């Protein structure tokens, strides 16, 4: 008998508490936003549309190493590496991402050794035609450094390019003189 009365009182309390909570939330600030009229705030490291960035000197960061392509679990990145004749820098001759296949996992960004490929907090890329989701290099390349402002691969790589011969890179000695036996 006592047990039954306790159950009824507990049930009653639970109902009242729920009603109280609902009443409280009626006056609380709303979490849902009126998308698309109202835009949600996104974290800077949100994984959305992929871009190709440039180094601080304004040159393409991508050196066409194919690591993003091989890391991609859906194989939606393809490119062709080439070497620029005027200065010996590597660059992608074409760079294509098929966003209709991309799952925005960010593995490409993790794999990229030059901080070239980066995911941005932009996800609004819907298209009526799937073909329009195939992005070429001109669609991907931005004119900024993205998340990594100071990095320039060619300053640390040790690869001679025009205007930056051997020994001119960070933490490098001048080229050795092979005709000398001095220590």
């Amino acid at each position, binding site marked *: 008998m006592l047990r039954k009365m306790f159950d009824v009182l507990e049930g009653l309390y639970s109902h009242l508490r729920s009603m109280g909570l609902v009443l409280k939330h009626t006056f609380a600030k709303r979490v849902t936003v009126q998308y698309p009229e109202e835009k949600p705030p996104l974290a800077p490291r949100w994984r959305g549309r992929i871009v190709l960035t440039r180094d601080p000197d304004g040159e393409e960061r991508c050196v066409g190493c194919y690591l993003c392509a091989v890391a991609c679990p859906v194989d939606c990145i393809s490119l062709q590496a080439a070497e620029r004749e005027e200065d010996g820098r590597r660059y992608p001759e074409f760079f*294509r991402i098929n966003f209709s296949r991309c799952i925005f996992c960010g593995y490409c960004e993790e794999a990229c050794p030059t901080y070239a490929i980066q995911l941005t907090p932009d996800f609004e890329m819907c298209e009526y035609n799937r073909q329009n989701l195939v992005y070429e290099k001109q669609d991907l390349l931005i004119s900024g450094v993205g998340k990594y402002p100071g990095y320039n691969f060619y300053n640390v790589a040790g690869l001679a390019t025009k205007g930056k011969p051997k020994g001119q890179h960070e933490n490098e000695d001048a080229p050795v003189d092979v005709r000398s036996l001095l220590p």
Partner: protein
Amino acid sequence: MAIIYIDGKPLETQDGQNLLEACIELGLNVPYFCWHPALGSVGACRQCAVKQYRDENDKQGRLVMSCMTLVTDGMRISVDESESKDFRANIIDWMMTNHPHDCPVCDEGGECHLQDMTLMTGHNYRTYRFKKKTYVNQNLGPFINHEMNRCIQCYRCVRYYKDYAGGHDLDAFASHNHVYFGRHEDGVLESEFSGNLVEVCPTGVFTDKTLKEHFTRRWDYTTAPSVCVHCALGCNITPGERYGKLRRIRNRYNRSVNGYFLCDRGRYGYEFVNSDKRPKAPLKRQMIDGKPVHVPMTRDEALSEIGKFFSNGSKAIGIGSPRASLEANFALRALVGAENFYLGLSKADGKLLSAVLEIVLSGPARQPSLGELKDHDAVLILGEDMTNVAPIAALNIRQSVNNQPRANAKAMGIPEWNDLPVRRAMDTDRGPLFIASVAPTRLDDVATQTFHATPDGIASLGFAIANFIDPQSPAANVSGEVRALAQQIATALQSAQKPLVVSGPSCRSEAVIQAAANIAWALCRKAKPAGIYFAAPESNSVGLGLFGGANIENAAEALRKGGADTLVVLENDLYRRVPAALVDELLSLAKHVLVVDHQYSATAQKAEYVLPGATFAEGDGTLVNNIGRAQRMMQVFNPEGEITESWRWLRRLRAASGKGREDEWISFDSFLHALVAEIPAFSHILDAAPTAAFRVGGLKIPRQSHRYSGRTAMKANVAVSETGVTADPDSPMSFSMEGFSMMTPAALMSSFWTPGWNSAQSITRFQEEVNGPLEGGDPGVRLIEPQPDSAVPYFDAVETNESHDAAWTALPLYHIYGSEELSASSPAVAELSPKPYAMLHSDDARARGLLDGDAVTVKIDGQEISTSLKTNDTMARGVVCLPAGLEDAPYIEFPAAAEILRSVTS
């Protein structure tokens, strides 16, 4: 057999091995750099350290370099013990102190032995805080890119280049931590085998320069087992394709053929496949604005138009080709009928080829395989410049000169793999290797004796040698000096365990070939296991020879007789084989001329119809190499347009003309069975590779790696919806990454990879033992075996006529770069092809008042060839040598009578 204990576990190893080889055979991951299966051990890199214990009570142990430690029975070692692990990690740490941070732009990345070993030892971060050492690179020519910063000083490159390949212009310079590997100055690497540095170098110091133009990482290639088409040796290769273009050629190990190495013509001659000049659709000649122009047509149009020429009753003449596969030649033979099928060889070429075939088919001497050349201990080369005609054979003959001197090392108890002491014990002893040739050859530096004479002089020397070995063989009339040399050679060959006689058609002399046969047979009759080895001119020369048939001159005769209106030329540029006048006559005699080829050759340009054939990378086929080894090449990729195998075009024509059924020979296997049923000499080619129905675990074998990238993006610019994978009815391989890539039979093995072993060094994981055959046996079947009890009579000796009259004998000199039709159109090879010249003995030139570099005119058969003069101090007298087969050079039928005049400069 020795039992060794690794971490307490008893394991079987072979006697006389070193510990590193034993560990590799047992499948253990012991890192190494300086050891290479073909180069042996020097203990330079200190990377392969393991712990060795005195006995089971020894807990302390000591570090030993496994590559320098002989396996002994009951030996106790540990690979995983912590001190040895730390030691190895320290070594790699030191190696990486100066290694640049450029893996993303390094062409070795992804198939780099240094990357593999770094990962294996667990090194992550550079702990050395100071500056990195740098080097200035060199320009080493069109084949090799040099990036010295990446060097880890393992010395493999110079050991390969100098000690193995016999090069002189790559060396180690400077001292202490400044050691530099390169040439004394910028310049093209002289060795014909320099391309192997790409695979020998464990890191990215030497990389493929032609690949750099269209760089692709290892995992992105579509590959299939293939066979090199640039000479007759049939070296096994792995071509790699990406985005519809052939990207590079890598070596495919086959102990019985090329082993670990390729020549530069084979490695860099591939770019003809990517040429824009190739026909990609059926072409028909039409007159536009009064000029004949080839216009493309559809497949159906072509088949119905051309098919009519072969309809019942009409006769067609077919000319086959020594650079087309067996299947293509057979399909042509089936289309035109055996009586109308002519080998695509000139009368002279055909005669030389049948002379060789007669000798090897009926004689008692065995032809060693290309890989077995290394095992012979006395070699005589009669009239052949092997380096330029059969390059890898020359590389292997170069190894054979070490066999007798190695006995010194063996007597001292030095194991064969211990490279440095073996070389010290050998000192400067080499040979015996005797070379008789018209002009100096690239093997002369290791020759015991060289002899330069006219082909008749070489043949006489050969007959004299045979006569010394077996007096029953006919004697030759030679001078005392030559006689003494013949006796010296005869003695050397007779005292060897495994003598070898090498010859070939380059002298354009049947007598030279017969003299070689006499020597080998004489040795056989004296119970010596003598080998005979003939070079052949083209990738399927011997296969074509086994078909048997008449030559181009006979085809012209048949056309002259009338009755045939159609001429079919299969993968053959007739202008390279017979005089231009004869080709012009042939082409004008036939009412319709059809060329099936992958090249837009001079002959194709004049044809009424051209059908686009497939190159080695785009089709399946069987090639028979110079010793009669049949090897299958698998299609690597699907070409664009209407390009398909020549045999398939000819099959379609046969069906369109009503000669064959529409559904006949649809698959490669059914076609192969028809070939074998018709020509039983080829019955073993069925064993060259598994049939198309072959499966591993119910699955096909993938042509692409499991990490192949860009599958859903590479064609997305054309259409975002992915198309299905093309089916391959011809082979048990799939054109995708789907399938089972393990337990692949050796004949289908194109890419060698196991976890942790991404570089070329992974090959040791697929060998039955170090330097042994691939697991399951070397692919390929021998079609020609010797007749040990054969009683064929000796050939008669030639009468030499050494008179120096006014006329010169013009002879060809073959060049590794330039003399072969297909590779010559590859830009890197073309860059190194020689300029036309005429070469004379210096004294001969001086006697006529000519000097090196003079402009001269050579008159042969009414043709006048203006060229520049080269002189040589040691070549044969009375002979003028001209480079053979150069592009745009007129055809000359060697040997020819020539006149040399000083060009009049106007």
